[in-house]
């Protein structure tokens, strides 16, 4: 039985100093302080009685009062003075906690931000002790702090089971839409935060990007339960092109190659001069026109012909607005 031996020793190196510091402690309190289930601590303590000063004669071993543990659920440890302070943080622990706190910091404000800043400075000091650098780092997308208050309001609506009225921006149509939703979950994917909710206008489950929510109001009405609705699986990304949507072939200049990585494409073919040819399913032709205009002139429609013509017409019409004197 060697699985988890390392982890067990790691837990003991926190438990023993805790008891030495605080004195006898109730099992439940120690479990809560360390974030470990009580039964796990009992198993850990049974290892401890076979450990101690080299030689392991009766007086050398760490003493755990098993009567107190089994009878009163109290932890009492003696003869372990050399384990009086907890082990320093490992490189993995140091980077995991400091980066988690820095990430929290990016979306906190007011008093919380102030508390976090002071806590982080102290923890960085003990965490960087003996370590060269963090081994993991997260850069939070800009605008997250602005979205933090919204996120907190939506989380509150979610936990209290209330409906929310949203004003939501739909970029493909360039429209602000009004809808009442039953919040189901807050999810993060690819650095973006989303509200998963049942939309009473669409009469279906929808994902709302938090940075596109223009206004929100938590209503008094209770959210309806939707037990049969499957949660969205974000593993394959959020966009699910439908197989019956028209297939469009684009030729992308090097400046527009990012499109092939950013959107789900059916096929990618390398072409001369660093160009790419891609096939993608298009659910909404207005979305495609916006994308093509944004990319002008680095993307070209190869087929179908009607999209190529529509794009040329849109580019010409837009260009004519720049030819008006005085505009």
């Amino acid at each position, binding site marked *: 039985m060697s699985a988890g031996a390392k982890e067990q020793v790691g837990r003991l190196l926190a438990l023993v100093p805790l008891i030495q510091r605080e004195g006898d402690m109730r099992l439940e309190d120690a479990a809560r302080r360390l974030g470990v289930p009580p039964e796990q601590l009992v198993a850990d303590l049974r290892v401890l009685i076979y450990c101690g000063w080299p030689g392991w004669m009766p007086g050398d071993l760490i003493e755990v009062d098993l009567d107190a543990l089994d009878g009163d659920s109290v932890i009492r440890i003696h003869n372990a003075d050399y384990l009086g302070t907890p082990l320093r943080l490992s490189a993995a622990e140091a980077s*995991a906690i400091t980066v988690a706190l820095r990430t*929290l910091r990016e979306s906190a404000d007011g008093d919380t931000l102030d508390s976090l800043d002071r806590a982080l400075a102290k923890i960085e000091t003990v965490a960087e002790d003996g370590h060269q650098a963090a081994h993991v780092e997260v850069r939070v997308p800009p605008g997250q702090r602005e979205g933090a208050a919204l996120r907190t309001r939506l989380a509150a609506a979610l936990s209290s089971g209330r409906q929310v009225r949203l004003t939501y921006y739909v970029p493909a149509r360039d429209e602000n839409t009004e809808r009442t939703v039953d919040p189901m979950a807050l999810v993060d994917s690819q650095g973006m935060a989303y509200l998963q909710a049942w939309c009473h206008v669409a009469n279906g489950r929808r994902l709302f990007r938090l940075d596109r929510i223009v206004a929100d109001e938590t209503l008094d009405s209770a959210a309806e339960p939707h037990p049969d609705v499957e949660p969205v699986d974000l593993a394959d990304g959020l966009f699910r092109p439908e197989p019956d949507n028209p297939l469009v072939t684009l030729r992308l200049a090097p400046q527009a190659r990012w499109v092939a990585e950013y959107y789900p494409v059916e096929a990618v073919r390398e072409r001369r001069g660093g160009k790419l040819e891609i096939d993608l399913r298009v659910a909404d032709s207005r979305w495609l026109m916006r994308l093509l205009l944004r990319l002008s002139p680095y993307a070209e429609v190869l087929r179908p012909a009607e999209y190529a013509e529509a794009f040329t017409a849109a580019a010409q019409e837009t260009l004519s607005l720049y030819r008006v004197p005085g505009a």
Partner: protein
Amino acid sequence: MTKSERLLNLLILLLVQRRPLSKQQVRDSMPPYLEAGDEAFDRMFERDKDELRALGVPVEIVTLDNYFDNEIGYRINPDTFALPGITLAADEAAVIGLATRVWQHAGLAAATSDALAKLSAAGVEVDRSRLDIAAPVVAVSDPNFDVLWQASLDRTRVTFDYQRSGTPKPAKRRLEPWGVVSSSGRWYVVGRDVDRGEPRLFRLSRVHGAVKRTGKSDAFVVPPETNLRELTASLSPGPATEVGTALVRQGSGHGLRRTATAVETDVPGPDAVTAWDRVTLTHSSVHGFVDDVLAFGTDAVVESPAEARDLAVRRLTAAAGVSS
């Protein structure tokens, strides 16, 4: 003696002795090592030391002074073993419990939880139940994250097949990984490219197949001036400090209006189909600004600066000609 007992007893042995112990002295002191054959002992002792080090235990190697040869000795220095003293105010201790809710990754979440347990043992009263703040969640779904993070922690070289953007076929890379970083939800590994002899960044989603560890741990040293935070910051676009204006048709261009720093209504526009507004937008590059306005087609026109307007005209002219 179970493995947990063996590890903890080895730790105590090296911690409480005042002088370093030779490998033979360690073996003589520990029944499970004495009972094992020579080869089995070597393997067991090496693995046990590695596991203690992975926990953060500083097992030091020193040269023993004796008259016969330069034998290697082992010890754990109590000063480097112990967590430095830390005192957190009540409000500071109250917020750090939130750290466990950030990671949506088993290994990182466990490491954070272990760190909090140690701080607790040092006297910090961690509150793990605060729910008044919705913590942002950092998800790690890339299957190669674990092996790269681990390799950066124990400094082991790795190899993988990597497809650079703009190349048709993946190529084999050899890397000394310094760390794994995330920028705007995308994960990258930073390190020294062994074949190119230079620091490089690789996007995890462009790695084909599995990352493999090669050779031993502690195979390289991370340059002391390495700063992962700065490297990560360099992945994101610069701050939006440039200012431009666009004319936007009334009732449209909501996407531009949402990010505008100012909106002036009923200004002269390029046509009389609708009324027009002027929106002021900050941006970090002229190209990005023009991209954002062009996306709105006949509902928006770049007004200033002249450089941006000229660029918009050139790009539209090329687009209108390209496909016709």
